């Protein structure tokens, strides 16, 4: 039941993220995220129900207990849930079209108007609704972060796992590759590539960030795998003649998954920062799409007149990053009690 719930929730999450990539059902742009939200709630409920029936089920019950007792981690989880909720369900709540320029958005002198009945958080530098842009922008920021981490996670985890388990030439090659990628100045390469590519989309950005950030995960996974493959029961399994894949996925993966999850969580925070930085430099999402980083950039001209233009996106970025970092810390403490 838990597994089904988790699966359904993930599916819902995916459905909610997809519109950010301009994938959607023609005609009704909100149908997909709405269905996704419903699926997510359903999945979460199933997951919760499963948990209530069998609390010991999620891996190590002691880990779960440790996590619950860690207030910082809980605070992080709440922050992440809050930001995630506003970002994924937010577009459904957005009062106005985020890209529409309103004549009433600028006053006679051309300065963005403050919060009012029409614009709950005021208008931005060319007269668009700030609140709607914040709500839509979060989805873009988080979608890019999740997408990039999914790519980086898959790449890094597999690379680390195989190189640690099989050793030999493969290991050497992967280590060299890791060193090479690590030697690249991250932001510089991301910016350069993003400029070279014609018409970069959100996908390109995801792939780019993912392809550049898998290395730490690979190293940690490899180190853990090196340990795990020497464990007695792994040796025993090998002696019994089990196949490599079976050993890997039954005995090794459960041992190395914990640190990978922790790293992945903190990686999300890093990706959000990088996406913001790139959007701020004008190299992230394409206008007029909003992301928190590009909103910072749009707002800087009017910093003196309307500091709120910077305040809200900046606060959301800080909250998200803070939340993911706290969550990651908590997960680490919970999953890896050896301090």
């Amino acid at each position, binding site marked *: 039941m838990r597994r089904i719930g988790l699966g359904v929730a993930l599916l819902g999450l995916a459905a909610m993220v997809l519109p950010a990539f301009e994938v959607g059902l023609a005609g009704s742009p909100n149908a997909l995220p709405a269905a996704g939200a419903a699926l997510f709630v359903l999945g979460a409920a199933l997951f919760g129900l499963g948990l209530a029936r069998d609390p010991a089920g999620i891996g190590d019950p002691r880990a779960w207990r440790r996590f619950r007792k860690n207030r910082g981690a809980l605070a992080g989880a709440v922050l992440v849930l809050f930001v995630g909720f506003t970002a994924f369900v937010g577009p459904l709540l957005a009062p106005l079209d985020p*890209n529409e320029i309103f004549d009433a958005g600028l006053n006679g002198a051309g300065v963005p108007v403050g919060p009012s009945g029409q614009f709950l958080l005021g208008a931005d530098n*060319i007269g668009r609704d700030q609140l709607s842009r914040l709500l839509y922008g979060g989805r873009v920021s988080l979608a890019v972060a999740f997408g990039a981490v999914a790519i980086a996670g898959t790449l890094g985890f597999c690379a680390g796992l195989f190189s640690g388990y099989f050793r030999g030439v493969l290991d050497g090659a992967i280590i060299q590759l890791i060193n090479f990628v690590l030697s690249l100045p991250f932001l510089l390469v991301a910016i350069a590539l993003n400029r070279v590519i014609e018409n970069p989309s959100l996908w390109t950005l995801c792939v780019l960030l993912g392809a550049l950030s898998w290395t730490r995960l690979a190293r940690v996974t490899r180190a853990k795998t090196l340990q795990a493959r020497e464990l007695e029961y792994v040796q025993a399994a090998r002696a019994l003649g089990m196949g490599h894949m079976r050993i890997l996925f039954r005995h090794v993966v459960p041992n190395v998954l914990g640190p990978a999850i922790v790293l992945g969580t903190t990686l999300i925070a890093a990706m959000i920062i990088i996406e913001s930085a790139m959007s701020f430099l004008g190299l992230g999402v394409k206008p007029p799409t909003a992301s928190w980083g590009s909103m910072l950039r749009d707002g800087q001209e009017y910093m003196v007149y309307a500091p709120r233009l910077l305040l809200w996106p900046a606060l959301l970025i800080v909250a998200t990053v803070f939340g993911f970092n706290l969550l990651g810390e908590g997960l680490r403490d919970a999953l890896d009690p050896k301090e």
Partner: protein
Amino acid sequence: MRSTRRSEAWAGMAALGLFAAVAALFAVFLPDAPDGPRYQGAGHETPQRGGTFVFHHESDLRGLDPQVAYDEISNMAVKLLYEGLIDYDRDTMELIPRLAEAVPEPSADGRTYRFRLRRGVRFQDDPCFEGGRGRELTAHDVRWSLEHMLHPDTGSPGVTFFELLEGVEAFRAREASHISGIRVIDRYTVDLRLSRPDQTFLYAMAMTFAYPVAREAYARYGDETRRHPVSTGAFVLESWEPGVEATFLRNPNYFEEGRPYPDRMVYTLNLRRIPATMRFRNGDLDHIHRQTPADYLTLREMEAWAPYREERPKINIWGVEMNTQMAPFENRHLRRAVAFAINRERWRRARANRLVLQGQPIPRALERFYDPDLPGQHEYDLERAREEMRLAGHPDGLDEPVEVWLGEGETGRAYGELIQSDLAEIGITVTLRQVAFPIYLQETGKPGQAQMLLGGWSMDFPDPASFLDILFHSRSIHPEGSHNRSFYSNPEVDRILDEARVESDHERRVALYREASRILVDDAPWAFIWSDMAMEMWQPYVRNYRPHKVWDNFYRDVWLDLPRRRASLSPAGRLSRFAAVLTPFGGRR
């Protein structure tokens, strides 16, 4: 273990609190930004020699060769270094003599201009001359300079302005070793003869392309002359660190006794408008010429600055250019639809009301030519735009998105988003392509490259030819580096423009340009949108500066009222204490 966690948490909280306290301390004790000039002049009434004048531009300086430089940034420096035969009066736009003794009148047939040079004008001292001392400027230099500029190997963008000089074609085809229309009469006299009368010829002679240069410099430095200017101008180059700054010193050989006034000019490069405004308000920069909308609004409200700023319309034209030789904009109705779909009032407000809206190619500021009642000029009319979409055969909009090329930065992005929003109303999806300015110039100047771009043109001389000939004559289409970026080619317009260029009757010229203007508005290779309103500000101790009517940022004649005194800031109690502590560090010069 738990206790460790808890103490860590406390430490974290304490660090956060400390950080907040430090930030708050800074916020309280940092001095307020002054709401007026920081420094006042010493109070001299007669021009004073000495001091350093500091000015800036947002981008980089490309070169200092007047025969090749053709951008605002380089020209600001070229005009300090070099001097022309004739120039414009700062306030009236009238031509005035500089190295020439008088502004020549055309001969009776309108084809010959006789330039008499001032005697005793010397080039600056430079190792390229014999003995290192600058020699006298003669009529032979005028001839050599023009021939060098017009030579095909020089690749000067100024050639088009001198095409009517007799013998240019043969010279450029390498059939003649000299231009037959340039005749040296004696050491100080040169005749320029045209193949047809050209009403813009004297304007061309006032452009930097016609500035006399020293052949010894080109012989010695070759292509490197752009780094080694050898000139007759008010200043000489002291140093140039590319991308950072260029500095200039007073030229002791300058022909005007006692001038120029400042000892030194410092040209700060790549200084964006936000930091430039901050430096200016702090007294570290002596002149600013562009501001963000927010800075503009802030500065405009400061009464103490009022005597030291001036707002004026610039003589330029901006709009959305559409490539008339590329799908989908080879369709005239589609172009017209775009022209009528631009919500100009909204654009104006988004740029702090600094756009002077206009719907035709001749800027309002060229008062004698601008036609306020031009039939069909572009304005915001959504109904009409939809009607044109229908006539274009796209009643429901375009299926394919259109790409618009823009310069980098927030400004370009803001305009791009305005275009997106306006054209979405008539069913055209627009994607933005923001590139660095040199790439923008290079790529949009090639045919078949950019469907649509946001472009502008500043005048080279106060005449419609400076806009229409350059932007819409088919002669301005080249495989590379076209200025006719809409690749508009219309024999009728070509004919009218050629006729207007030689027409000596003023009223008839006006009528011809208005006719060309009407056709262009009708054909809409551009959606004509605005010309700029610029605000320039200078420090109180900068004297004899007023915006030049023709040139951008022309500093040759300024003098500095030094030593400058720190203005008493408005008493701000505890805040000014902090400022007072810093005062000794605030000085310059």
